[in-house]
């Protein structure tokens, strides 16, 4: 049974459609990747699915609940890691997890054990009492994933979980995401513009371009559909979107990296 189901989900900003009639379903236990260049509508899709913004038309069910009419029920079963590094720098890592464990109503008796376990698994135990302001980008991302481990949502939405991380940190985050699925049976919906990430991690990917779903399937299926030997997901993307994934993003990427640097510096 699909745990996320969208039907003609659309979002309009002024005269432009950020997301166009998106229809897709994600099965329970999947890691689903939304792939696309800057401005494709990935974040907008996630914001609708996490009840942050209402769709202009169409709709979606998460865990069987309507994202607009039953927003509160949806919020009980989901977790969300926004695109920006968003832990509170003025609190320690431990405190960040503690506050969210309370907001998500983790039973008091289990809070401490779960927080300590999550910090341990994410390799943050020795920094637990340090202010997050002093963390590196990779550490903040791991802390945010630790947050999800503490409250254990049924569906976790990750918006570009590895953007701005160096290759080692990126690899570490991928491994942790995989563990969330195996350890807690979480369904994970993530966005990325790293083909490698999608190929490595996702059971299925959707290629989004200018708000439209251009292709949908397992990485292997998509590569096979090109009928060229040794096709990569990059080739798939060029084929469906008519442009390379890595172009066009440089300005926003730098700006984002700079913003992250400023936050951490």
């Amino acid at each position, binding site marked *: 049974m699909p745990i996320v189901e969208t039907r003609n989900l659309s979002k309009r900003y002024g005269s432009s459609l950020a997301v166009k009639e998106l229809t897709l379903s994600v099965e329970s236990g999947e890691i689903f990747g939304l792939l696309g260049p800057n401005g494709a509508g990935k974040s907008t899709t996630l914001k609708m699915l996490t009840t942050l913004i209402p769709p202009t038309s169409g709709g979606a069910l998460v865990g069987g609940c309507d994202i*607009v009419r039953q927003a*509160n029920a949806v*919020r009980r079963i989901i977790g969300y890691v926004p695109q920006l590094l968003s832990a509170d720098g003025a*609190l320690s890592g431990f405190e960040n997890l503690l506050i969210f464990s*309370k907001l*998500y109503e983790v039973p008091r008796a289990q809070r401490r054990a779960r927080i300590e376990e999550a910090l341990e698994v994410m390799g943050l135990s020795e920094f637990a009492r340090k202010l997050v302001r002093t963390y590196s980008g990779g550490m903040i991302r791991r802390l945010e994933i630790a947050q999800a481990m503490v409250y254990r949502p049924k569906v976790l939405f990750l918006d570009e979980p590895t953007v701005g991380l160096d290759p080692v940190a990126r690899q570490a985050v991928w491994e942790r995401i995989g563990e969330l699925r195996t350890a807690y049976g979480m369904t994970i919906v993530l966005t990325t513009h790293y083909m490698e990430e999608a190929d490595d991690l996702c059971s299925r990917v959707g290629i989004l371009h200018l708000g439209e779903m251009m292709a949908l399937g397992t990485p292997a299926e998509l590569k096979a559909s090109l009928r060229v030997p040794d096709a990569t997901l990059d080739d798939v993307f060029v084929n469906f979107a008519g442009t390379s994934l890595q172009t066009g993003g440089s300005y926003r990427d730098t700006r984002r990296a700079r913003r992250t640097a400023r936050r951490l510096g």
Partner: protein
Amino acid sequence: MTHEGLGAPRAASDSAGAAVVRLVKKTLVIAELEVRKLRHDATELVTRAVQPALWLLIFGQVFTRVRAIPTGNLRYLDFMAPGILAQSVLFIAIFYGIAIIWERDLGILHKFLVSPSPRAALVLGKALSAGVRSLSQAAIVYLLALLLGVRLNSNPGAIALVICAVILGAAFFATLSLVIASLVKTRERFMGIGQIMTMPLFFASNAIYPIAIMPGWLQVVSHANPLTYEVDALRGLMISGGSAAYGVGPDLGILVGATAVMTLIAARLFPRVVA
């Protein structure tokens, strides 16, 4: 806008009582967050002490000497001390909404909005946080007032009510600030509007002179200004020999009502800052 209500989630098993408990618990979690931040970095509390000190030392001393303002049986300094407390609370709370814009820009607000917390609890939590910050102002103003020889009322019951009045005053202006932040959405515009608002709110009140000496139109404005009722309650509670013109009970009642209305408006508006 979504169709959901402002209140707690309505799972089928939820009674109204459980919803209220959830509202209170989540409000306290948000306030706890603020207290923890203050524990890590209290420097802001010190810098915030400068302004009320200047008002009491300079303005208060001078006007006590010239006796230009009729304050009944109170010395001018005694009359104005509660007004300066209310003012310093106002100045903290009215800029509180910028925290929401700031947190939106950092992505932090998104995570709070996605959590299963009643929107009203997120607003009230921020309001209570502003109240917590304001209490340090109260302590500073009390200390300064003591040094300047203001005749303070040391009755513990009265002091407890001062704490209530300060928290309520802060809560009202912080929720007002959240409403403004939700409407203007950017830091620059918010700062502009905040600066435009603070002075009229302060001067169109009984903070540093009695309403009776104002022109008629300003009296009307002052009576519609919740700051007036905060100051009035503080004047009745803080100063020995002071009295509340409208009664402490009605003053606090008006503040509770005004905060409740503003909370409902803010709970509806502020999820839009992420849109």
